[in-house]
């Protein structure tokens, strides 16, 4: 196996319309340039989801250039070498499709969904984005303004909208989870075109991407098309040699590479026949791209920090944040079940006791941010009218102490297990969702097949595990508490 490296190969079962619920079958392989590909065939509806996940999120940013990963999510709709500015989404709409993207601390995810006859169009669009997107000032200027509007609307103008930013910056001092994907507008203003180009060249390379396609496809045909659009994307640093070749003038190119642009085919870089040209390409193909990943380990919190945040809100809120385990650990599964016990569904402890019985809160939450490295667990509530933050906090703490000191009853534990079983079977209802789950599982857990196996992880958790994680993570002397108060009360 040279060019194709198969990491997983599963025979395709015939899909029977009236058969038992199917396991999600998929094929997975890696192209020579490092692009990971996952294909899932489901012909129930003649639509296809073309998705690509780049393993870059805000945690890969420099501390003085935050917001870059999310900014790229915007910038990469601006166009490419062959797609005029503003045309990217028109190709999709004109063909009856829909598209979007999102960014987390760990990854950036793009997708298109359309009728299955547009598979090739989707692959072309994504190959343009990967190979030679336009990373230049005009697009940067436009998207900077759009991102600022987005921050105003979704963070600043949203009641309690800053809690994530405020909590993470107090929980993490060493690790880049210190900041959140929306990042700093000042950093975006300060950044120069070359900063953006460098980011693109570092993280937008095939070896850092997973192409996941689900829906009405013919696997063989899909492979041929993927091969057509993606196999010729250069591996290693050769992709950046090409990008610089089209973007840089001769002098800049010479300075960087110590060779002249003239040794390459001027019309079509990929049709270069000169000996030196081919040698240069070869050399850079063999220079791997190193993707910087944060290695910082955050020391445990040593005390309880309480801060007050004044916001445009009507009702005070209490947000209690703790360090949580990384998502691919047994502790993470146990903690998720604990969250469900506390706040999942109308019969959950916090809803029954704090919201309905004591009427201390209009809503109460307990959840984890599922992140690749240890992240955040949050227990929170929005106070009812005339309830103080102390009263609410005491009630939340009471529930936490209870799970730390009393073993959950068998019946209540079974309820939580049943809820997870229901969630598991509810999660893969669309081809777009399946494509995304497969890609996430591959990237974060190194196992796309977790889409079929994840339930087992929860089945292995015991009641004792729940109590253990409650003690281990919900520590009173190692947490950050934010009291959100109406801005008016500060006057």
């Amino acid at each position, binding site marked *: 196996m040279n060019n194709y490296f198969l990491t997983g190969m599963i025979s395709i079962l015939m899909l029977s319309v009236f058969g038992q619920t199917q396991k999600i079958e998929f094929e997975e392989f890696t192209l020579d340039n490092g692009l990971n590909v996952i294909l899932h065939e489901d012909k129930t*509806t003649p639509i296809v989801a073309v998705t690509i996940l780049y393993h870059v999120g805000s945690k890969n940013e420099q501390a003085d250039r935050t917001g870059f990963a999310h900014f790229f999510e915007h910038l990469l709709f601006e166009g490419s070498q062959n797609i005029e500015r503003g045309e990217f989404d028109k190709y999709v709409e004109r063909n009856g499709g*829909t598209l979007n993207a999102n960014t987390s601390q760990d990854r950036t995810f793009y997708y298109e969904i359309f009728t299955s006859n547009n598979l090739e169009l989707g692959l072309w669009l994504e190959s343009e984005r990967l190979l030679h997107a336009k990373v230049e000032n005009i697009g940067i200027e436009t998207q900077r303004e759009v991102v600022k509007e987005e921050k105003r609307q979704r963070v600043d103008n949203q009641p309690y909208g800053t809690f994530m930013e405020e909590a993470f910056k107090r929980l993490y001092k060493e690790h880049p989870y210190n900041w959140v994907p929306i990042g700093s507008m000042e950093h975006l203003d300060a950044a120069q075109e070359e900063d953006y180009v460098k980011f693109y060249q570092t993280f937008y390379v095939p070896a850092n991407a997973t192409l996941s396609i689900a829906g009405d496809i013919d696997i063989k045909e899909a492979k041929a098309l993927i*091969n057509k659009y993606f196999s010729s994307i250069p591996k290693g640093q050769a992709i950046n040699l090409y990008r610089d070749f089209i973007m840089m003038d001769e002098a800049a190119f010479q300075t960087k590479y110590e060779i002249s642009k003239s040794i390459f085919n001027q019309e079509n870089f990929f049709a270069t026949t000169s000996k030196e040209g081919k040698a240069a390409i070869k050399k850079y193909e063999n220079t791997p791209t190193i993707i910087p990943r944060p290695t910082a380990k955050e020391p445990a919190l040593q005390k309880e920090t309480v801060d007050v945040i004044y916001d445009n809100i009507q009702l005070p809120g209490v947000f209690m944040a703790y360090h949580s385990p990384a998502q691919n650990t047994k502790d993470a599964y146990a903690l998720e079940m604990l969250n469900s016990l506390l706040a999942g569904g109308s019969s959950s402890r916090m809803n029954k006791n704090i919201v309905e019985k004591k009427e201390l809160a209009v809503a109460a939450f307990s959840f984890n941010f599922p992140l690749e490295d240890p992240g955040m667990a949050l227990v929170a509530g929005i106070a009812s009218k005339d309830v103080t933050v102390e009263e609410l906090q005491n009630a939340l703490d009471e529930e936490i102490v209870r799970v730390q000191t009393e073993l959950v009853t068998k019946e209540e534990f079974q309820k939580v297990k049943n809820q997870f079983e229901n969630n598991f079977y509810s999660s893969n209802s669309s081809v777009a969702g399946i494509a995304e789950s497969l890609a996430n599982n591959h990237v974060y857990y190194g196992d796309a097949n977790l889409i079929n196996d994840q339930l087992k992880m929860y089945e292995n958790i015991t009641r004792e595990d729940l109590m253990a994680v409650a003690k281990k993570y919900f520590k009173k002397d190692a947490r950050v508490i934010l009291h959100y108060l109406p801005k008016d009360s500060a006057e």
Partner: protein
Amino acid sequence: MNKYIIIITVAFSATSAFGQLDRTNAPKPGAAPEINIAEPEVFELDNGLKVILSSNHRQPKVSFNLVFTSDPSIEGEKAGLSNLVGELVLGGTTDRSKDQIDNEKDFIGATLAAGSNSIFMSCLTKHMDKGLDLMLDVLHNANFPQEEFDRVKKQTESGLLSAKTDPNSMASNAVTKSVFPNHPLGEVMTEASLKNISREDIVAYYKARFIPAGTYLVIVGDIKLEKAKELANKHFASWEGGVPYEASYNSGYFPENNRVIFVEKPGAVQSVINIAFPMDIKPGHEDIIKLSVMNKLFGGGGFGTRLMQNLREDKAWTYGAYSSTNIEREGAWFSAAGSFRNEVTDSAIYEFLLEFENITKELVTDEELELNKASMAGSFARSLESPRTIANFALSIYRNNLPSDYYQTYLKKLAAVTKEDVLAVAKKYITPKNLNIIVVGNEEVVEKIARFDADGVIVRLDEFGNPASMKTYKETSMDKNEVLNNYFMAVTGQKKLAKAEKALVKITSMEQIMSVKPQGAPIELTMTTYFEAPNKRSTSIEVMGMVAQKEVFDGEKGGSKTMNQSGGHDISELSPEEMDEKKIMNTLLPEMGLMSGKVEYTLLGIDELNEKEYYVIEYTIGQSTTKAYYNTDNFMKEMSETLEVTEEGPQNVTAKYSDYKAVKGISFPHKISQMVGSAVLDATVKEINLNVKIDPKKFEL
């Protein structure tokens, strides 16, 4: 799949790497796939209940939805009754308390929901029996406990409060009330109508409408026909009785000419414009697909529509402008809407009207027709992924008597829509001279929008869409100066004005220290005020010894500083206008500033609040308007309300003054409770010292 194929692809990829692939042009899509819409199973039980089944085994889940088909009725003084039914049906049964229902539902990870005409349950297939048991209990035995009724009513009441401040709810209330008078679609719940609803009303509604006759049971998911038949017969066939309520209604109100309807939102910086009119069309009508194409390209979503291109992309007057067609069994209407800055409110209405004219006069372009048809076809195809869509299609076919292939042929009909069709439906349904032009916004825009009303008389509605009554005050023979003079005499305890004035002028300086507690917050603030005649003033607020906020004016200039989150202070200086205001109004009592003759003020009359009567004086300074309330018995000021327009929108501040105590003969309120939005600050005076020496530095930042 075998190795052989892989090797071939490998060889192919080796030759094509760095090959001659032409990336310059987008690949053309292949032949459009055939869109097959699965046929649901439909069968009827002996009691007449129709069952629609859409099987889908992708997930081991199943859902049951009971849909009751009584027509809505006019609720009148109990408007909103049906909105409460859904939540209350789940509030307890003769066998189970609400807690038990919640617990048992969560135990199997099920969803149980209800609306005014439906009960829905979904769960894993293996818990189907248990899920159905809960659903049936709620269906047959709901007993509406009084305490749940009270809790839900209380919760709904606070929901109505927020509707009062939301301009979009206000606009939508005005639309439904204006387009559908005396019609179930035109009813809006108010605080008064909520009060009129009793538990017995809810019980009666449930008994009359949650009945088998005319009802559909829609089953979706991992269940086969035989099992569905077995369960439906077992659980629903013996359920009998009832007659669905039937009624027919008018098809909405067409104004004879364009009319402007205004809803005031004090202090608004944006106007919500919503132009709406009824359409005489029923679900299933052959024009519907053509009409939806017309709406899509007019303003039905996306950036490429006419409204978006004109009002956002070209004029940049709005973040978004949209149109919609709403075609329901009870009635149909068209609406086009957006939010616009005050200054461009009239220009925006002009552009809306122009777009209405254009779409009814000229053929649309080929490009916009094709783009929008393609986009609609794609979204139809994507919607088919959900088995629920298939079931809803079947339900719609039955409820609206559509031909059985209505949805099967949807794409074909869509593809056949021409430019001429679009023009024809636009001419038929859009009546650019019979529009309801609804504007929710600031009083200042009224004058400019009157020209769009055919007879120039604007209709005014309140936040719930009812005729607005202007606030009225009782007349009084007292004159505005007399009120203030009496107030001065009251606070100084003098019987003669001259003596009162003398007493006030004697006060040359003041130091006041107050303790301030925000309700609901665990903190106590200290607010210190210094005053030196005639108009030097400084106010600072300290939290735990740190200055959180300070505002000063030294007679000539001034400014403020506010602590920011990094612990430093943001400083801002007073504008020239603000300095002019301070010079006049920074007197010991603001009323002394009013008497200076430099500020306009009026006596609105007498208002009654909490069984007490007050003289109400109103004055406007800069961006803020204040109403001050003086007790008619003793002329003491007991309340003031200030509406201030800030950069962040309008803000209401209400202050209540009580516990008047004399300091050197002058009465000062020692308790002040201030409400800003929903936040309440309680202030208590700790000390007031008059005619003390004040360090000039106190008036510096």
